[in-house]
């Protein structure tokens, strides 16, 4: 299908970008989701506000207790950046496996999160790492925990006039394993199993349901796959029936927990 006409704005500061946003004037980063949706006629914005020329959106840095990632940073950079590798290995590992080479080169972490696609690797990992998402609009800024950001398929806590500016991950970062079952372009089931800095454990199950679900456990031996599967809401599609998805979700939770336990031995 043909891309319909639109106006293109190219602000160089967050403030400029915010002043340009409106209901039909939307943020545009890598365009890997946005332009496809426009081609398919799902949305027809009159203007795109390109975020790629805003330097602070491209930053990766630490300030004493947090790793800060600009919303515009590409998957590729996250997969290879030394700071990310050093402080948030799980994120780097997951980013290496996102989509395909073109999507990783072009797509941004912010675009991934804001699109609210249920089968996001990033969402699952950010909940495991207890990231905070920085949102801004012309009235001010706020911070939303990743746990509270994903409200449903293609639906997030972000207001249409808000920009996601940065992702902030508390340090030291949780460590663990990220396993996914994937047969097509996006994961069918994704499981992040981590040891939190406080010493307890968190298992996040993403991609299989409308939003990620998670549970915290005092010990890795207490992870209860059946209970966690019960909290997901898989639907039958080409990658599997509901019954099959529940089954592989259980298998993957169990395998992730076993791997985590092994890694601690």
């Amino acid at each position, binding site marked *: 299908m043909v891309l319909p006409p639109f106006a293109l704005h190219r602000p160089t500061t967050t403030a400029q970008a915010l002043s340009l946003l409106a209901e039909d004037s939307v943020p545009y980063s890598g365009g890997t989701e946005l332009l496809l949706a426009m081609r398919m006629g799902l949305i027809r914005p009159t203007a795109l506000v390109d975020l790629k020329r805003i330097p602070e959106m491209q930053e990766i840095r630490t300030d004493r207790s947090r790793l800060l990632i600009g919303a515009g940073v590409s998957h590729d950079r996250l997969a290879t950046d030394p700071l990310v590798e050093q402080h948030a290995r799980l994120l780097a590992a997951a980013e290496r496996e996102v989509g395909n080479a073109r999507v990783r080169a072009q797509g941004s972490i912010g675009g991934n999160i804001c699109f609210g696609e249920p089968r996001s690797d990033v969402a699952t990992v950010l909940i495991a790492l207890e990231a905070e998402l920085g949102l801004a609009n012309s009235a001010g800024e706020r911070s939303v925990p990743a746990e509270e950001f994903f409200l449903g398929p293609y639906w997030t806590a972000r207001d249409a006039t808000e920009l996601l500016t940065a992702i902030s991950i508390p340090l030291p970062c949780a460590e663990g394993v990220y396993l996914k079952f994937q*047969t097509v372009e996006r994961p069918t089931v994704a499981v992040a199993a981590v040891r939190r800095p406080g010493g307890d454990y968190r298992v996040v199950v993403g991609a299989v349901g409308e939003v990620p679900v998670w549970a915290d456990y005092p010990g890795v031996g207490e992870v209860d796959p059946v209970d966690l599967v019960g909290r997901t809401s898989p639907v039958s599609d080409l990658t599997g029936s509901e019954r099959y998805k529940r089954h592989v979700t259980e298998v993957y939770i169990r395998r992730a927990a076993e791997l985590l336990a092994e890694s601690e031995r």
Partner: protein
Amino acid sequence: MSVERRRVAGQAVQRRDLFEKVTGAATYTVDVTPPGCLHAKVVRSSRAHARILGIETSAALAVPGVIAVVTASDLAALFPRFGHIIPDHAILAMEKVRYYGEPVALVVAENIVAASDGAEAVQVRYEDLPAAMDAEAALAPDAPILHDDDYGASGDESFSEMAATPGLPDHGDSPPRTNVAHTVDLSWGDVDAALAQAHIVVENRVHYPMLYAYAMEPYNAVASFTEDSLHVVSSAQHPFMVRTDLARIFSLPLSRVRVQVPYLGGGYGSKSYTKIEPLAAVGAWVVRQPVKLVLDVEEAIYTTRADSAAITVRSGFDAEGRILARAFDIVLDSGAYADNSPLVLAKAVNRCFGPYRVPNLRVRGRSVYTNTSPASSYRGFGAPQGALAGETNLDRAAAQLGIDPVEIRRRNLVPPGGEILPGKRGIDADLPADLELVAESLQRDARTVPGHGIGVACTASDAGAYPISTAIVRVQTDGSVTVLSGSTEMGQGSRSVLAQLVAEELGVPIEAVDVVQSDTAMSSYERTTGASRTTTLVGLAVQRACADARAKLTEMAAEIEQCPPESLAQGDGVLESADGRKLAFGDIISRWFGGDAGEVTGVGTLRRDGRTQKMPPFWEVGMVGVEVGIDPETGVVRVDQLVTVADVGFAFNPKAVEGQDLGAATQGLGGALFEELVYDGPQLVNPNMVEYRVPRMTDLADKIESIVVERGDGVGPYGAKGGGEGALNPMGAAVANAVAMATGKWPSRLPLTPERVWRLVNDLPEVDAE
């Protein structure tokens, strides 16, 4: 038997199109935009089966930039359909639509955005009709009938000759009308008597999925009329076949229809015969300006797909595992229009029972109309469907008899020269030797651990299509050579192979040879580019054209040297006189014409006589083995080993042969493990690149061995015969056999997705009851 190594032929020369393609400089149809070109967008049916009550075009015509909206009613002065076997395919739907996605109108505009907006503004009013969404529904007694008309099938001799049983295609025109587009039956011996006496009778039923060939380039065409001539640039495999359809539509002499084909971005059979050329052409005919039509992937999937199949097979064996009789019932889901499915059916019938001694045979084949995207040629031509049935049946028999799967094949394969189809060419290959190569390689690296299994499968395809080829070789005054051929370079590397052949035959450097292809006005005639024929059949025509050029050069040299032609010896790029002087080809031409000008034209033709009298022109071998490992908890199948035999007689370019062989095997792996077009209601759920899952690099086997076998036993130049689809044909069957060995359960449906294998392992139904 081994083959002679040669100077150029047989060498892994660098592809001619390498740099052009890698740098993006190569021209494809999408790159062609003539001056004054308009752009078209197709309005497609939103129903599977419906009567068209009216088409409202005024809103579309009001869109700025829209020039015309073409519908079937504009085509009254034309022959409004196409189809080389059954001319049933409406260019634009007439009176009713037969599948979701069928072209109903064509919007022509100044630019593609206007054309798209215009297409959205066209209002079509429908009255829904009951739809037959699969072959079972279409064959039901009260099924809605797709085609009420009798279109009159083609009496083309070549078509009936490619089926084993002669006679015109029967398109089901005797009342009562059914949805059977075509039937093919083949039999010999007394199957029932043989089955009654058999030691065991093994029966099973399989389903082969609906596939899309996934050429990277979808269908594109640019058409223009000048005076009374039509010029079409298109992504067609067979420009001369398309020319025939276009000439009939516009009642033009063949010479006034020019179909030109630049590089193709892959074809795999999906670009054979006529596709969207008539659409672009009727657009250009209405507006009298060039019209360009470019499809996206979804539109391409709704243009052509491969026939899915349901096949039942019963075979009787003696206690030693020798085949006594085989009976097949094949039903192809051919979609809304016949296109090339009658031939796919004929080939499925010829190929399903395998390259074995089958003393008694009965095959019943039906190609069925359904309200789905029309099916047509696809790499393998019915062989993959048939092999899934026949080759899994053979493994079941082996298991029942306690015989190794390789051994049961050893006991049944036809020997070199043996007949597969009575009265046809005997097999020009040593299948038993090929089988041993596969078995040895698999065994060498086999892992005998739980969850692992090995599968082999064999096919032989009556390939080459109908032997009609011509070639022209033009020798220039500087000794360089221009080769004209109507065959299409579609990624398979034919341009390089034909250049190698000419360099070899004339003894000139390969750099001095240029190959010009696929232009019905400028190149020589070629029937088709398909059925793995180019190296073999076009090769023979080119070889003859080279001989003709040499003969002419010899005559000319004899005249200027005033010596008897027999006294001149043939050398590399030269003739040698009796006194030892070398007369370069270019100098002979210059001297004969005078004034450093002129050229010599060698002409080569090929038809059904002499060495290409017997059909098929050659057999194409498919001999593969795989080892798989299965994750019993998830059902994921991982391919550990892939072994193929490319039995090509003579490998013009061994690297190209290997590439084709592994490409075919990998495409076969797609249908075996991942690929399937899925209908849910009237439309496809996955007509796109994200959800139609093709094989990726990461799916490839850990060990891949492509064994190139050269025994010089082909009919083509230096003993060559075709390659390029062989390894696809048995892949589905081999994978199914390996999965059966790994799980102890017999799969009956491809692709073997993780869920299917998980259900198989756990004895769960294919789908859960609601």
